[in-house]
């Protein structure tokens, strides 16, 4: 059920078994898992949501902050603060992280998760149900009915993968609102902004959580377990601002909270393919719908990636590339640069079909694709979220300063991905690619590069408290009953969109908490 926090008595204390801070992908999934009575005895869950059921300007304002590093989105526009959290601004793209993303890679400092991909697979499979996706199969084969993934050959450096895109359940706040209204064991407190997590005097456990309401009461929540699930920017903010007992902030004894901020640099439309329609049916690489009922509809979208062995051999971070139809996307390309030789290349390459198929000698029929290239960014302790010393929000909580940094390997990997694609297309006779990424390993990225609203790494997991804020379960080192959920746990980001992994981690945590409580 929903509770309007404005109606609470000032100074009141609400109690439950589990207190979840945030109702986004992580918090909502945790609550849904814990409310499921089939799993055993009821668990009383408190969900503290800063916003209401819809977006409100005064609440969104709490998300404002300052970018002091690489150019980035306005922080209040890069996430949502109302029921459903940032699933309210989510594109819905789902894919598990690749096995290599979990590995400790010698060439990539600070890499490695405390568990492998196989550990998450059962939870990924369950996340499919939450998002009303298809079968948990991200290999190309099941999705090739309307067009096959191109077989570049066993020696090729790239291969195909597939996204499943949530449609019916993408806006989790809207889709599951009724379920929460009916739920007896889960109470969602709206307009309850957490301003601090209050530790016991010994600093080893959470005593209460302080909540404030705009033009309303201040109250506290108390639970056996507290789950911080407020997003990759707010999680470190709340931990750092909760400094009454642990004066550097909760979990920050080793100055790790807020560090290792990672995004997925999206280097879109920086490469361009001219190819022949006679060579291959590209429908696999286009977004295609599945599912009969609208509420259970999902889409698939093929993409290209560098094979794991090539990533290791060439010491690259992970990179994916999706295909955009150039003519459809042209209007979205902000920087419509002149492409040298394009007029010449098109007719010459229009019949690029080698010895495979029919000739296409009509230039107008040549295919023109651009590519969207989201990529992993290397864990970098200097890339960080910290508290402003000069600006506070309406509750007096310091606002965020985001200092986003990238590393030379990040740019080199994207550039190399484009080169490997170009080589593979040429080798297969599929076409020729136009590349723009400069060959210098400097910090100069294309002007169009931008983050994807993916905020990761700021409370990273590691078994060693000196190297991670949380342990492998998400528990904050040194605080017995405080857990973190969400992408702030990611030690490395991979290249896949984070939400699907956020759900898998949340389901895993719900199982662990359920086992403790039942």
């Amino acid at each position: 059920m929903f509770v309007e926090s404005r109606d609470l008595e000032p100074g009141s204390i609400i109690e439950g078994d589990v207190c979840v801070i945030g109702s986004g992908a992580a918090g909502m999934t945790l609550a849904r898992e814990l409310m499921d009575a089939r799993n055993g005895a009821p668990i009383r869950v408190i969900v503290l949501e800063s916003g209401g059921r819809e977006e409100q300007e005064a609440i969104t304002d709490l998300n404002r902050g300052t970018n002091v590093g690489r150019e980035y989105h306005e922080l209040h526009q890069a996430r949502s603060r109302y029921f459903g959290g940032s699933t309210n601004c989510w594109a819905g793209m789902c894919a598990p992280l690749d096995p290599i993303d979990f590995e400790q890679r010698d060439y990539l400092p600070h890499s490695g998760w405390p568990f492998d991909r196989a550990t998450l697979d059962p939870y990924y499979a369950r996340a499919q149900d939450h998002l009303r996706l298809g079968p948990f199969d991200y290999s190309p084969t099941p999705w090739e009915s309307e067009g096959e993934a191109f077989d570049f050959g066993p020696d090729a450096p790239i291969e195909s993968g597939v996204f499943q895109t949530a449609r019916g359940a993408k806006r989790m706040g809207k889709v599951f609102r009724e379920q929460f209204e009916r739920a007896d064991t889960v109470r969602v407190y709206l307009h309850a902004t957490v301003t601090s997590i209050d530790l016991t005097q010994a600093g080893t456990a959470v005593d209460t959580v302080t909540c404030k309401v705009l033009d309303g009461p201040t109250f506290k929540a108390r639970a056996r377990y507290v789950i911080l699930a407020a997003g990759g920017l707010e999680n470190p903010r709340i931990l750092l601002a909760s400094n009454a007992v642990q004066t550097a902030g909760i979990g920050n004894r080793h100055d790790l909270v807020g560090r290792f901020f990672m995004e997925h640099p999206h280097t879109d439309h920086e490469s361009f393919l001219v190819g022949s329609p006679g060579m291959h049916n590209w429908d696999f690489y286009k977004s295609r719908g599945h599912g009969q009922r609208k509420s259970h509809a999902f889409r698939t979208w093929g993409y290209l990636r560098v094979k794991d062995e090539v990533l290791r051999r060439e010491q690259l971070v992970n990179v994916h590339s999706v295909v955009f139809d150039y003519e459809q996307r042209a209007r979205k390309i902000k920087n419509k640069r002149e492409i040298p030789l394009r007029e010449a290349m098109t007719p010459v390459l229009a019949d690029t079909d080698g010895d495979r198929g029919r000739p296409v000698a009509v230039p107008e029929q040549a295919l023109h694709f651009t590519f969207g290239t989201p990529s992993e960014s290397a864990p970098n302790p200097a890339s960080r979220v910290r508290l402003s010393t000069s600006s506070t929000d309406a509750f007096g909580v310091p606002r965020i300063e985001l200092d986003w940094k990238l590393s030379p390997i990040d740019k080199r990997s994207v550039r190399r991905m484009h080169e490997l694609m170009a080589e593979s297309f040429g080798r297969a006779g599929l076409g020729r690619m136009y590349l723009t990424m400069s060959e210098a390993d400097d910090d100069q990225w294309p002007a169009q590069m931008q983050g994807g609203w993916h905020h990761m790494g700021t409370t990273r997991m590691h078994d060693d408290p000196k190297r991670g804020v949380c342990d492998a379960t998400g528990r904050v080192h040194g605080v017995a009953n405080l857990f973190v959920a969400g992408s702030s746990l990611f030690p490395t980001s991979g290249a896949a969109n984070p939400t699907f992994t956020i759900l898998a981690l949340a389901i895993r945590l719900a199982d662990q908490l359920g086992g403790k409580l039942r």
Partner: protein
Amino acid sequence: MSAGRVHGRREALGLLAALLATGVAGGLAGCNWRANRDVLVATRGDRDAAKAIGEAWLDQNDEVPKSADELAARFMGDASLADYKDKPNELRAMLYERIREDFAEGRTARLGGWLMSTTELDVYAYVAVLVY
């Protein structure tokens, strides 16, 4: 071995037609020599395009020879153009395979941003030098 010399503008145009079709693909399987010439040499757009790319390659890289014979030697390797005079389909297949190998083995160059096989670039340079 010599790349072989082709004499006469008409004969050269016929050979170039085959090369153009090869260029990036040579998909006209089954076409004979004269059909290639008729279809492709008459297509001024293709020829202009090949010339533009070939000239750009010559301008960008001082190490690319400016003579047709030397260019032919580069893209023919140990073979001779003369050997293929009456075998355009075989010439296309041979060059197409070389282009594929170029991409597989990294014998590529960026031309104005386009990643191209050095063999195909030399073919276009040959077109630019010989036809115009």
